[in-house]
């Protein structure tokens, strides 16, 4: 199982699970954004992934990269707000290196590329209470797992767990980027909605990998 790679079926399952989990957490993400932002993050993500699901419904992608590229362009053209371009760029960069099945190193490279995309567009660093605080530990964890000889499933699971922790860690932070930064110190004590949606997406990726691994 640790040798299994993640292919197109996994990517499709990931996005199907992501669509579901985003829809299930629409209200929670709205509530998180209501506290320190403008209350639309859940609505934005749900609108985007609903469109993604519709787009992928008829498609027959040949690689994980093709799946992720469709996700990227669809999010970019339907989400809007800050999350639209950021996730759009993340998935676009992630897609680039994913033209074949992914081993653990491939997973790490994909996540690093996504993170770099987010950082390039958003100009945020860790500790600024944004989705960067979920993607950074995720990418680091995946790379460490790969270097420690883990398989792709374990790498993506490590990334997901790290993202969940990263999302949690945004709670005490004072935002300096994104809409929450307008609140200054009042932003502390609330979880960043983008970090949380990032964690949800990466957990969906890990679960899809595990489901495939289990079935393999």
């Amino acid at each position: 199982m640790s040798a299994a790679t993640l292919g197109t079926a996994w990517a499709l399952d990931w996005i199907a699970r992501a669509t579901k989990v985003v829809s299930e957490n629409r209200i929670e993400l709205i509530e998180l954004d209501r506290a320190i932002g403008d209350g639309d993050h859940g609505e934005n993500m749900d609108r985007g992934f609903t469109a993604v699901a519709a787009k992928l419904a008829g498609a027959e992608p040949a690689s994980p990269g093709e799946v992720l590229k469709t996700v990227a362009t669809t999010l970019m053209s339907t989400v809007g707000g800050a999350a639209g371009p950021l996730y759009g760029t993340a998935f676009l960069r992630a897609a680039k290196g994913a033209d074949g099945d992914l081993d653990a190193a491939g997973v790490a490279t994909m996540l690093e590329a996504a993170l770099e995309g987010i950082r390039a567009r958003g100009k945020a660093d860790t500790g600024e209470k944004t989705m960067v605080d979920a993607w950074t530990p995720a990418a680091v964890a995946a790379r460490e797992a790969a270097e420690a000889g883990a398989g792709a499933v374990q790498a993506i699971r490590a990334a997901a767990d790290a993202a969940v922790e990263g999302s949690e860690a945004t709670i005490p932070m004072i935002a300096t980027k994104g809409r929450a930064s307008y609140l200054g110190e009042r932003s502390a004590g609330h979880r960043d909605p983008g970090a949380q949606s990032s964690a949800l997406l990466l957990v969906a990726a890990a679960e899809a990998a595990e489901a495939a691994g289990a079935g393999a």
Partner: protein
Amino acid sequence: MKKLINDPQRVVPESLRGFGLAHPEHVVVHEDPLFVSRAGGAVKGKVGLVSGGGSGHEPLHAGYVGAGMLDAAVPGAMFTSPTPEPILEATKAADGGAGVLHIVKNYTGDVLNFETAAELAEAEDITVKAVVVNDDVAVEDSLYTAGRRGVAGTVLVEKIAGAAAERGDDLDAVVAVAEKVIKNVRSMGVALTACTVPHAGKPSFDLADDEIEIGIGIHGEPGRHKIAMAGADEITERLLEPVLEDLKIGSGEKVLLFVNGMGGTPLSELYLVYNHAHDVLAGKGLEVTRSLVGNYITSLEMQGASITVLRLDEELTQLWDAPVNTPALRRGV
């Protein structure tokens, strides 16, 4: 939540359709992608002006499409920056061959989506420049943060840059005028109540009956701090002081005083705020030579107001006075 709407998901397109039906002499509403352009199309040889952002701030921006102001506006979902595609289409519709100016309010989402649209437009051989409005002194400015929000000052930028484009300025000159307004305009707002985004169905923040939020933006986001409810004169002073301080404005200067309603505050209260703001400015030796009072950039049904001060010189005054013919702002035509 009680609203005069049908389906929360259809508020923006249904409202814009009505807007188009009500103002056929001013605008054309395009449905897919959703944007608004001037009736009659781009003006040949004139710099095109495009602005946009999340919906919920009406009449901004679509209400300012027309001669002397914007050439096109791009309304996103409620409080959500539009995606690049409608911005691109609006940019094409606004292009009269002399380039297009994007007037962007400083929000991460607006900046990113307009950036992408500008790249796409450049790829189609349209010259695009952007200015970013960031007049809200409630937010501390810093190199290391997202910076200040763009709020009510945006209306003044759109009017004045629009007049510059209409008189025939080239793209760089229109950018310079817009930058001059941005450099000389500051705002700060207060909320007495929150607003409710249709898809959220709940007020954007919680506020006790005896509290108000000082330093709110235009997206129903909480402000910098809550204070106990106070009289209008005191609130006016709390908004005006940081504005004046940040503008570093001194006795003898001329200003435009703009009291803006957040959507749910009676006009009479806005004039009451204007009354005291005017006195405070006069007391500091400033001369209020132009005024604007009303609901020009709103947060749905939020009760509250913002105060904006623009330092005027001869040029800005003339451009402010220039004719404008839009659904929401009209003069001289």
